């Protein structure tokens, strides 16, 4: 692999505070140097960035891969293709596959499958409970030893208070956060939309907004009781972020992420029974969307994750309540996040931190930085170049985007994994 100089770029790396024009030199797959006045060595391939932003390859902390078990929706190969197109070089894979990732061998398998793509680091989440069934604790210690980045039961909440207390407590011995899907299962059962006027009009079974805050309030108290490290995936309501804000203020080890639909769309996107906008948790009223956008700015939310949930047409072409929940998100993660920057309130450095350094820290990843000596996982994007999201023409296999037709500013020009160009 030839060494590489990315010249005339705007270097942006929140992990090192880098924010300015310059160039970046890659040797042997690692970042050798960067700065405003690097020379132009003769033995390297030179790429002229023409002023575009060069940041660390994105770290997406919430992705369902489709493999193992749902290859008709997405494979690791197709997910890697979509990730590269989205500027993502590291992702954390949810364990609620078939089989669930509840055995050390499966953790090892996923890591190896990631390496085999050559373009993507897969950080496997391991199951909190065997089979993600919410009953018996999985072998957290052995799973951690095999390389599990953190623990979660994916899109299933750990419902039992006693079990949640025990895993928060036990996992302290091995590190690795407990990542909760914050939705009370008994309140959510059978629900297809957020309870309220819109769900009433559409005749859809509703899930009350408080289903999220109830679990968050409970688990924050358990984090206080146990001293455990707790993370909430895809937070989506105003009340939830307020609870997390207070927990952080108190000094508890509580963190959270959200996904682009929850700060970019509101519940009206499901009008006319559009099943591509059926997500879990369901889209929320406008006031909640605004609260999520505000929590990105004030730092309450630690990361933006795609919450990529691949589905095929047959999963979605059904009456709304029967359609499978979930949206594809790898290719649109950066573009939708940048809409918050162009909207004027989130700074570019904050946006990049939410997609790189902050999730990398939560996952214990070596990625998410342009520090000298780090792997040359890079994303080059033009912040204003326009494009349109089109279901059916997205990279990868899954086409179930809730953003179909959305015009975006901000496009990935190139992605590098350990110094090798994997997109653009």
């Amino acid at each position, binding site marked *: 692999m030839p060494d590489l100089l990315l010249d005339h770029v705007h270097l942006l790396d929140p992990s090192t505070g880098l924010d300015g024009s310059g160039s970046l030199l890659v040797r042997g797959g690692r970042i050798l140097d960067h700065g405003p006045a690097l020379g132009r060595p003769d033995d390297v391939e030179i790429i002229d960035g023409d002023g575009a932003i060069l940041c660390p390859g994105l770290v997406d902390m919430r992705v369902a891969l489709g493999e193992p078990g749902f290859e008709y929706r997405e494979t690791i190969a197709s997910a890697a293709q979509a990730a590269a197109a989205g500027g993502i070089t590291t992702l954390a894979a949810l364990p609620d596959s078939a089989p669930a990732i509840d055995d050390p061998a499966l953790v090892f398998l996923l890591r190896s499958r990631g390496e085999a793509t050559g373009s993507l680091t897969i950080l496997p989440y391991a199951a909190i409970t065997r089979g993600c069934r919410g009953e018996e604790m999985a072998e957290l210690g052995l799973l951690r030893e095999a390389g599990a980045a953190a623990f979660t039961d994916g899109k299933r909440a750990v419902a039992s208070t006693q079990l949640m207390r025990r895993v928060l407590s036990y996992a302290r011995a091995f590190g690795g956060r407990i990542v909760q899907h914050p939705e009370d299962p008994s309140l959510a059962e059978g629900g297809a939309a957020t309870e309220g006027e819109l769900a009433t009009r*559409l*005749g859809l079974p509703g899930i009350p907004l408080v289903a999220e805050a109830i679990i968050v309030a409970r688990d924050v108290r358990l984090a206080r009781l146990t001293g455990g490290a707790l993370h909430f995936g895809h937070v989506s309501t105003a009340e939830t972020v307020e609870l997390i804000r207070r927990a952080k203020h108190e000094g508890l080890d509580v963190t959270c992420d959200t996904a682009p639909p929850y700060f970019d769309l509101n519940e009206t996107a499901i009008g*006319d*029974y559009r099943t591509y906008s059926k997500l879990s948790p369901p889209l929320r009223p406008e006031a909640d969307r605004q609260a999520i956008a505000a929590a990105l700015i004030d730092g309450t939310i630690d990361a933006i994750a795609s919450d990529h949930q691949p589905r095929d047409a047959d999963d979605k072409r059904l*009456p709304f*309540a029967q359609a499978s929940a979930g949206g594809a998100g790898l290719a649109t993660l950066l573009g939708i996040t940048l809409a918050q920057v162009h909207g004027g309130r989130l700074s570019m450095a904050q946006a990049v931190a939410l997609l790189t350094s902050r999730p990398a820290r939560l996952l214990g990843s070596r990625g998410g930085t342009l520090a000298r000596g780090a792997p040359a996982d890079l994303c080059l994007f033009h912040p204003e170049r326009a494009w349109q999201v089109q279901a059916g023409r997205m990279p990868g296999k899954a086409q179930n985007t809730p953003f179909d037709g959305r015009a975006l500013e901000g496009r990935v020009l190139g992605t590098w994994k350990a110094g090798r160009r994997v997109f653009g």
Partner: protein
Amino acid sequence: MQPQRHLLAIEGMYPPEIGQLLDLAESYALLNRSGKTQRDLLRGRTLINLFFEDSTRTRTSFELAGKRLGADVINMSVSASSVNKGETLLDTAATLNAMQCDLLVVRHDQSGAPALLAQKVDAAVINAGDGTHEHPTQALLDALTIRRRRGRLDGLTVAICGDIAHSRVARSNIYLLTTMGAAVRLVGPPTLMPAGAERLGLQVFHDMDAGLEGVDIVMMLRLQRERMTRGLVPSAREFFRFYGLDAARLARARPDALVMHPGPMNRGVEIDSAVADDPARSLIREQVEMGVAVRMAVLDVLGRRQIRNV
């Protein structure tokens, strides 16, 4: 305004559209009473009653309406079993297109299913009840029944009582009655009230006596057994004690108030037989009669638009 090709919902319809349908239905009601028929209107057209959920009365009403207008009527009952075999709604749509159906009447237990079918079939789709969403022809027949007795809809106060949360009949009636200028009250226990009801501009009552005070029309809804097993209401007898309609409760309404029920009734659960069978107060039989007239009007209008579209 582009005329609708389908009848999927009352929500979004304008007063003149509703008024014209009711006028046409009125003329069919008179025609039906005179014993004459209009068998040339839909001659050669095919109407398919596609029922994913059992409903003898609605299906029969559409069947009769279609036959009185001369259409070839076919009933297809799709049982849960063939859905379990993996045939999807869209497979069904492809089958229907191949059969060259002109008018498709759909009943389904899922909200939005007729709208999904309407995207895929060439026929005009008529929603005959979808999940907990809408049942437009029921609201039209209720409106016609009221209008024939009271001469108008605007200015009337209508109390819709019982399991409103799970009722497609309630939703369609709420939209139709408020669009036509009537005031709607919802009466029922909090667990059977839909979320956001107040935001739809409706008055909500949990005390039935207060809710019926001075109303012109009392519209009862069916309470399904399932509501008891799912813990929304503790028992049928408790429901009847607080939300059942008997003569004493009806006395709270205007002296000439009329009683309606979409059927089938649970006597002794939501309505007392003495009220249901009182010819001076109960419109229940007339609702069934108007059902045929309203469905003839709907088939007439959509059938003609079909011909123009071809």
